[in-house]
């Protein structure tokens, strides 16, 4: 097929989600011409998320209306290198976005800064626990940036996304009611925390009685009307409970649509092209420079869009796949433990505890995606791991994200899966249970990586990305430990029954766990072990920046998007203040 060559622009973003919109906004503000290419459809608060249609559990939560259409593109999966990867034919474990706003449309809004320790996992584990602190095949490493390097970028993202919370550490001073373990902040959250539900209030009481410091989950669900630095006004959240997997009818959940896009689309220097599926990044003959990207539009026409800077903002899987297909950077070889692209794919290791009561009314359908109370005593290196046999940890939280009955009808352990007894238990315990989650980290390993599948192809004929991933003993032990702590908090509430299940056995792609996929194009100070430098710039092709959680060298015990936002601002600053002055590799 002959591609139509388009007029060159300064910047093209592959994908228009959380990171793509922030970079579009910052770089058009810097005077650059930016084109955003998005494979999915345009969509906005009105009319796409209007009442009452958006309150449809079947359509959005079960049939994944807003997420990636796997009939066009998916990835393949296997647990271990010796096995044959098979395509993920249905969505399950994670739910990548598709369409303007990406997964930022249907996220919950739990918005974290990682701990200072998270950025120095390897060096600080070894310093505290000795050279054998990490398993022999563990490839977790330092990020090449510190928390202090990112603080201003975290702050910027929190201001733009209107995060509500309570500071636990302001300029090094520990504040009551916040997270005492967090890194120092230069200022408080722009908005106050959310109201507590009955469940989160009980969790806070019980964990305080156990000596923990419970604090409100940092939330991108607006706790009051808010106007952000881009002049976008977001309405207050009404706690309707339709956040996770839904768009927000109130425009009250910070997202590309509510926080960034109206300001971005108003810029004469920005052009959004939807239903534009990027096929590949094209390099010059020396393979040292990206010259353009090729994409296919809704009518099947192929276009070539030349650009001075190519930003991969197509989520973890798109980013890594485009690097591999274009041959940017050396693909990872797990046998030799060499090469970088696809290396250090990681995930989240989440487990849950449910407590059942006879005499309480939780009204669990009320809530908001980031309404929760959290204890961070068992995250990162906030506790002594001596003799525990694992590094890392995770937060423990009780959230009232809003539940709906197809997905959520918890029944006590021992209840049959169907029939009259099941029905009675559903009737009795609906509204009489609360859940506590242990949100564990995942370290990186030689045998967990992304590469190109040898067999399966997408609807455009391009090979699928292949994921090889499993939990390791470190994660299983961590999950045991965290789940036991979560269970102790639940038991302190004197429930009539408790179900608790640590993550054990092999990772399965079937049950939903989280859309917190990380790594594959990790950042670092050493080109031998990272695909991008500490500015998320490709070591090999310096006019390509690879933005997103693909840059995390391993995953922390938090949700990723706060850090994805911070890294996006870091890239914007680096391009504006350093790259434009002197196009080429950005030094230290």
């Amino acid at each position: 097929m002959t591609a139509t060559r388009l007029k060159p622009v300064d910047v093209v973003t592959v994908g228009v989600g959380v990171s793509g919109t922030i970079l579009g906004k910052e770089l058009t503000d810097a005077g650059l011409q930016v084109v955003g290419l998005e494979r999915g459809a345009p969509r906005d608060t009105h009319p796409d998320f209007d009442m009452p249609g958006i309150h449809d559990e079947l359509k959005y939560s079960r049939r994944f209306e807003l997420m990636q259409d796997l009939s066009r593109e998916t990835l393949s999966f296997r647990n271990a290198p010796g096995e044959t990867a098979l395509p993920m034919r249905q969505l399950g474990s994670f739910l990548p976005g598709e369409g303007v706003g990406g997964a930022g449309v249907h996220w919950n809004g739990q918005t974290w800064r990682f701990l200072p320790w998270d950025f120095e996992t390897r060096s600080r584990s070894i310093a505290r626990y000795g050279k054998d602190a990490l398993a022999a095949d563990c490839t977790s490493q330092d990020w090449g940036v510190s928390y202090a390097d990112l603080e201003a970028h975290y702050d910027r993202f929190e201001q733009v996304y209107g995060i509500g919370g309570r500071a636990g550490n302001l300029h090094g001073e520990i504040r009551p009611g916040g997270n005492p373990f967090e890194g120092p902040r230069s200022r408080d959250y722009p908005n106050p925390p959310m109201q507590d539900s009955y469940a989160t209030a009980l969790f806070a009481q019980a964990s305080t009685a156990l000596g923990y410091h419970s604090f409100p989950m940092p939330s991108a669900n607006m706790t009051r009307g808010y106007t952000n630095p881009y002049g976008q006004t977001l309405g207050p959240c009404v706690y309707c409970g339709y956040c996770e997997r839904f768009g927000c009818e109130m425009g009250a959940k910070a997202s590309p649509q509510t926080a960034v896009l109206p300001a971005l689309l108003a810029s004469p220097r920005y052009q959004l092209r939807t239903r534009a599926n990027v096929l590949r990044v094209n390099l010059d003959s020396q393979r040292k420079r990206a010259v353009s990207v090729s994409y296919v539009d809704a009518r099947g026409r192929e276009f070539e869009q030349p650009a001075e800077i190519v930003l991969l903002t197509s989520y973890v899987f798109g980013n890594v796949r485009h690097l591999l297909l274009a041959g940017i950077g050396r693909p990872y070889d797990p046998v030799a433990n060499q090469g970088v692209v696809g290396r250090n794919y990681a995930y989240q290791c989440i487990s849950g505890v449910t407590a059942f009561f006879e005499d309480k009314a939780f009204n669990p359908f009320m809530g908001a995606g980031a309404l929760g109370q959290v204890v961070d005593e068992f995250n990162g290196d906030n506790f002594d791991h001596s003799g525990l046999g694992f590094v890392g940890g995770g937060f423990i939280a009780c959230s009232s994200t809003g539940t709906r009955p197809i997905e959520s009808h918890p029944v006590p352990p021992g209840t049959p899966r169907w029939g009259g007894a099941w029905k009675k238990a559903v009737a009795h315990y609906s509204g009489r249970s609360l859940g506590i989650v242990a949100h564990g980290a995942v370290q990186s390993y030689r045998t967990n990586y992304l590469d190109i599948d040898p067999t399966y192809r997408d609807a455009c004929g391009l090979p699928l990305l292949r994921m090889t991933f499993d939990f390791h003993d470190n994660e299983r032990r961590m999950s045991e430990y965290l789940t036991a702590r979560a269970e102790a908090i639940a038991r302190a509430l004197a429930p009539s029954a408790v179900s608790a299940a640590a993550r054990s056995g092999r990772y399965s792609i079937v049950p939903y766990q989280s859309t917190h996929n990380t790594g594959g194009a990790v950042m670092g100070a050493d080109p031998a072990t990272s695909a991008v430098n500490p500015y998320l710039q490709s070591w090999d092709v310096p006019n390509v920046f690879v933005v997103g959680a693909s840059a995390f060298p391993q995953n922390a015990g938090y949700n990723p998007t706060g850090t994805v936002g911070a890294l996006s601002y870091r890239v914007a600053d680096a391009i504006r203040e350093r790259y434009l002055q002197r196009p080429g590799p950005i030094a230290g």
Partner: protein
Amino acid sequence: MDLSSSRRNFLKAVTALGAAGLPPADADAPPPASASAPAAGSGTALMHPAHHGAHRGAVPGEAEAFQCLTGPEAAFVEAAIGVLIPADELGPGAREAGVATFIDRQLAGAFGTAARTYRLGPWPEGTPEQGFQSRLTPREIYRAGIAESDAYCRTHYGRGFDALEALQREEVLKGLEAGSIALESVAAPLFFSLLLANTQEGFFADPMYGGNRDKAGWRLAGFPGVAAAYVDEIGKHNVPYRVEPVSIGDVQQGRAPVDAHGHALHTRLDKRS
């Protein structure tokens, strides 16, 4: 509440809206592509509202006619869902709640034809961790799963599934769930888990999909359906919020009042406020 009378009211409301609320049809609109397609009847009605619309009476049950399930398949599904979620003193079961209609509609549409499923081969079975790998669409899984389960019942009990005693039905469903009954075209546990998932979906999904009739599933679980603004309720701890559930259709068709943002103004069933 009397189930059948509420159903009649529902149909009346829909019909009234159909007559009054439809825009006039475009006279130049081309006729439906296939005159013999089942859709042709309704297409004609739409094109000649003056002839049909004004005097059109509700035909009870019309909307529940099966699009996809054959007679024997419908009988199997009705019998199975009645075991999975039985009617009892707590209220209607899946069967009474119209879940067979729900399943039929789902199988007839995008879900049934696996529209958003990756469907290129090869098709090795894979490990449980690798998830769904069947070559069949959900519609085909039902088709094969029902026929082959029925054949099993005839061999072992001398009768089809829908003619079995209650305990025998339970036995067969347990056998499918555990895989102790082997089917030829599809793994029995896969067929069973699809049937169970769809049954629960139909029981709890918005009634516009054909199940959850009279919001039986929502009443059972105390679920309000379309949400209200709970900003002043979330802080009332340990106070049950029991309301008459509201569906999407209730709001779209003006049966339920809403606030300025379109959130339902619920009618409380408990006496507190």
